């Protein structure tokens, strides 16, 4: 094999594509910050959490190439992430954090 084996990652996206992704991220961030100034009532918490998750997934999928890379990478990373969410979720629940 030659040195340039990582053709998959290059298929990922063009530089213009990256800039578009960054623009989307910036826009979401602007929305996030705006929740600080606008009263969204009951929507406040869920909307922030959703925006956070969307940003997270976008960076991981596009900037970190997980979307284009081998599934094994996604598997090991999301295994850690989901385990953390579940374990620490239960942990906080035992402190009645959510009630």
């Amino acid at each position: 094999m030659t040195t340039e084996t990582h053709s998959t990652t290059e298929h990922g996206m063009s530089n213009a594509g990256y800039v578009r992704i960054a623009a989307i991220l910036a826009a979401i961030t602007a929305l996030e910050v705006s929740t600080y100034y606008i009263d969204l009532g009951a929507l406040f918490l869920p909307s922030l959490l959703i925006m956070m998750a969307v940003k997270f997934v976008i960076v991981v999928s596009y900037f970190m190439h997980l979307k284009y890379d081998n599934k094994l990478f996604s598997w090991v990373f999301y295994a850690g992430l989901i385990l953390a969410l579940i374990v620490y979720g239960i942990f906080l629940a035992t402190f009645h954090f959510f009630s």
Partner: protein
Amino acid sequence: MAIIERPASTNEVATVATPSSSLGALKRPVATTGWKSWLFTVDHKKLGIMYSATALFFFIVGGLEAVLIRLQLAAPNGKVLNADLYNQMFTMHATTMVFLFVMPMAAGLANYFIPLQIGARDVAFPRINAFSFWALLFGGIFLNMSWFLGGAADGGWFMYAPNSGPIFSPSHGIDFWILGLQLAGIASLAGAVNLITTVLNMRAPGMKLMRMPIFTWMQLVVQFLLLFAVPVITVALFLLSFQRNFGATFFDVSAGADPLLWQHLFWIFGHPEVYILILPSFGIISEVLPVFSRKPLFGYPFVVFSGAAIGFVGWGVWAHHMFASGLGPVSVAVFSISTMAIAVPTGVKIVNWTMTIWGGKLQFTAAMKFAVGLIVLFTIGGLSGVTHSVAPSDTQQTDTYYIVAHFHYVLFGGAVFGLFSGFYYWWPKVFGKLLNEKLGTWNFWMMVIGMNMTFGPMHILGLQGQPRRMYQWTEARAGEGFFNLGFWNTFASVGSLVLSTGILLFLINVVITTRSGKVAPLDPWDARSLEWMTSNPPKEHNFDSIPTVSHLDEFFHRKYQEDASGQMVKVKTAEQVMQELEDNADAHIHMPSPSYWPIVLAAGLPVIAFGVIYSIPIAIFGGVIVLFGAYGWAIEPSTAPDDDFDPPATTKDVVHVG
């Protein structure tokens, strides 16, 4: 690189590196013999031996600590240790046994045997491997230096608040404990990344996941557990460090903190940790039982999947260590049920082992004896485990000797017996000589008797209400007749001496074998897996040519084939199988080259740790060492360039490893 010993018949298979320079900094080490060849090695086999030797040393240290504990409790009003020393003793005993004996021993065996079992020539990151070892060794030494610098840690191995606070533990012991464990944690984490990558990426052609030897499988599960559990204790240890050294109050109730925070973090790590301790041994006996029963492992996929299931469910039971801490009824009920559930995959394994032996042509070698010993003793420990999964009953048992009995049956009867089984099984592979079987038998029986004498009575002591971690007992409250605490305490203490004698017999066996042991034949046990398909000890590059794997138990299937009547009959000797590999030997193999940087980088870590305790400038100096090591590392290729090798080889026929 070493000139590799090889049968005179084969072509040249490896070459010596004579680097001209190592990129401006230091010249690469080239020693192939003597202490330098060990200090700067990146060879997974040497490192495996170094890990195991370190572990064995700490086993002796931890064992002496245990004997002191039992001497103190042998008679009423014990005077061997004072209360303070007693606390240090049980804390350091447990810490040493868990973190400095069982874990490194399992890591040593993993290091040595995973690459061999999957048909690789080294691990994925040889230098990280060396770094892990040094970090562990320095961490272990650092931890034990506290004995001489004002006293060791004394808060128990789970270091609950408030005992971990400066009021109850003013010495530096706990600081040494925290930082020593951080170093060991770094080692485990780096090791986990390394070994998982190795298992996934370095398998020989045809070595599908479901063809991997079971020891490798169990280690894979263990490494994933380490990968995800170590960072949790890292967080806990950092918080405690900040509390003890920088004035934070994370576990200080008077400052409004919740001491259960520590307990949760510790046991989120701690329960996966108990599987980190036991699964390697499960893997070992799953190799040993089939070999000495002359049958394949019964239900290989079940053993694999139950191992993975244990690894998975093991994350959801941690709070069973906290039933008595006022978690609230819902939490207690949930964790009680999940704990009962985890006994199921464990039971599956016991069934599989039993079915493996069932109807086999059994050969009771020492390795086999220890393996069967594990099945029996671990089952006892597993059953007492189930009794404390029932929360109401656990509230009676917790913090008594009943718990001590439980975890010693699973840990000593389970993990340690498994490791001993592995010692006897793999010794000829590593050192080319067979451990004495007769001494092995004595070793085994002394350990079985000693272990049951020591830990068996603790069930009674515990149920009678003798608390853990109590430094003296008095005749006045010892009770009557069969349940007399005094009698059983003395009995257990005598047992601990029997047990120690058993272990001593092993050490004697090692010395005798090294001096005058029988040289092992190529395939002494008629084994089944790839690590036996190479010389004893293996050549530096493990295999002359990488085997192509087409079966589970590949080596067995190369030796045996089905005849017309469906019987497996031997068609080739091990020597013939080996010869086939040699005939196709790779002409030039360039192994990863020795390096100074792993040990340099690791040496910076204890310096930082000292600095955290005594003075920040020292820590900064340690940081500089780490940075220096990291730079040297970054600019040095893992394998020296081809023209640094002697004789120079044309790139065409060179095989690069790592």
